[in-house]
């Protein structure tokens, strides 16, 4: 494509402006985080004496290692189970075409646009009834259920495009339904499964509402939930709040920058299908 020089310059200026708008809040956090703790910082300014020690303080105050560990455990509790059971269901609905699969699929679709707030009240009483309020299970179990509409939808979309001849040939060779699933279709579904894994991990890590309502102890929460609690406690000490927020963001940012290609394509596909 041939593009005029002037267009290139104005175009790039627009993009640079948008990039600046996007990073502005992050820069603002960093600038405030380096001001003396307990001072009232002003806007963005490079501090005369950057207080890197604020990060150390925030690290200790927020109990970062414990927070990280809790979030990791929650992700490990949610994502593998959710991926496995939704892959099985997607396989049955999309490929095996079980009788009654169509209404069943519509039932799952019903939940696709359901805002979490819509069922948070009964979830609270349900989780309390199960005796798991204020434990990680209070986030893990409901999240698996809440992810089912999207995850089943996603995996069905993959399996519905798999040629049926493949399974028929394997059947002729005497493969059971489980063999078919485990040895033929599971390996071929890897791209769909890994994208789903990325999506569910990001969503779990960032889940706030369930953590806020169902778990009081920040050390049993997701990263987003912990950040919310941290903000509640340190709202008045802006430098420490900003340093803590940046620290809590760091793991996400590092993982994103390392795997950005996979992240972007997973999130794009995720919204295209959803």
């Amino acid at each position, binding site marked *: 494509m041939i593009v005029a020089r002037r267009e290139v310059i104005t175009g*790039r200026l627009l993009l640079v402006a948008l990039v600046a708008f996007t990073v502005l*809040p992050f820069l603002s956090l960093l600038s405030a985080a380096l001001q003396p703790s307990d001072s009232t910082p002003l806007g963005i300014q490079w501090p005369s004496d950057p207080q890197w020690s604020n990060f150390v303080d925030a690290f200790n105050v927020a109990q970062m290692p414990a927070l990280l560990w809790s979030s990791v455990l929650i992700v490990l509790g949610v994502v593998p189970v959710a991926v496995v059971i939704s892959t099985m269901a997607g396989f049955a609905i999309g490929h095996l075409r079980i009788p009654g699969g169509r209404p069943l699929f519509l039932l799952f679709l019903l939940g696709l646009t359901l*805002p979490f707030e819509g069922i948070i009240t009964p979830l609270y009483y349900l989780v309390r009834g199960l005796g798991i309020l204020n434990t990680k299970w209070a986030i893990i179990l409901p999240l698996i259920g809440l992810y089912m509409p999207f995850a089943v939808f996603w995996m069905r979309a993959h399996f519905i495009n798999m040629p049926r001849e493949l399974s028929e040939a394997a059947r002729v*060779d005497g493969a059971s*339904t489980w063999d078919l699933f485990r040895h033929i279709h599971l390996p071929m579904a890897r791209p769909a499964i890994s994208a789903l894994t990325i999506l569910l991990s990001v969503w779990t890590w960032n889940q706030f509402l369930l953590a806020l309502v169902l778990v009081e102890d920040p050390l049993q929460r997701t990263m987003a939930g912990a950040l919310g609690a941290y903000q509640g406690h340190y709202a008045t000490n802006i430098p420490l709040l900003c340093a803590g927020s940046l620290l809590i963001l760091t793991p996400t940012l590092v993982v994103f920058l390392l795997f950005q290609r996979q992240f972007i394509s997973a999130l794009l596909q995720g919204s295209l299908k959803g």
Partner: protein
Amino acid sequence: MDDSVLLRVGHRVPAASRLRTSRWRGVRSPHLVGWLFVVPALAMYAAFVLLPLALTVQYSLYRWDGIGPSQWVGLKNYATVLTDPDLVGVILNAFKLIFFFSLIPVGLGLVVASVMQRVARGRFGTVTRTVLFLPQIIPLVAAGIAWKWVLSTSGVVNQVLSAVGLDGVTRAWLGDFDFALPAVGIIGAWVLIGLCTILLLTGMSKIDPALYESARLDGAGAVQEFRSITLPSLRQEIGVCITVTVIAALASFDIVYIATGGGPGLATTVPGLDIYQLAFAGRSVGLASALAVVLFILVLVCVLPIQRLARGDET
């Protein structure tokens, strides 16, 4: 699979897999086996989505403080949700947010994506994409905290305004009755612009360049090109962007909870936040549930027509 097939080809079946097959023999029908694959997902979905959904509907017909006995009130809670000025205002707030969460990101996204398509190749393009995508992967809570600080009395926005001599305009943006909701809207726009831009850009890269060439031969300008080629080809992507952002606006919670807590007054309270406050602080579980049902219906009513329009004749 039917047994006669197995018998006919039986001699070719390796012993090991014949053994494995026989495990399913007792079950007989492959359909039943298929249903077994669905059971775990369905069970989790039923327990943690369908059951709570049914309970929400049930609660919405009662007056209940969450502790004591409940009292049947029929549809009275729904009448309150749809007539009480405060609650109607809260629902309207969600619709006002659509302007910021949907219109700005989709509109600006279209412009930025077509600019990126033309001038941002190579390294510059990659870096731009990555940065624009950042708001999508950080928790909304973090976006709320960062912007709360940016928009505060001593934040960057006021710092810049003062620097250019507009001291008179500076204010606590999130604490101002007139500006708090638009300010929350800007935060939402910030989160969603990148996603929309990159979604639309992906769509644009699928358009056949020959279309543009022939348009140019016919003497079409950039604007005409955009209207007659780019927009129609992006119907599905635009549909997706609108769907995602409208849901984000109607069901917003995290950003509002962190940035304003719904204040000042009820200026930025949205249905999601009000459900939370009514149920857990206000102890009006019935009313909160009625609002939840109304919210769910509103989302469906807004999203289904968009989906139909976007998919439309393409299928």
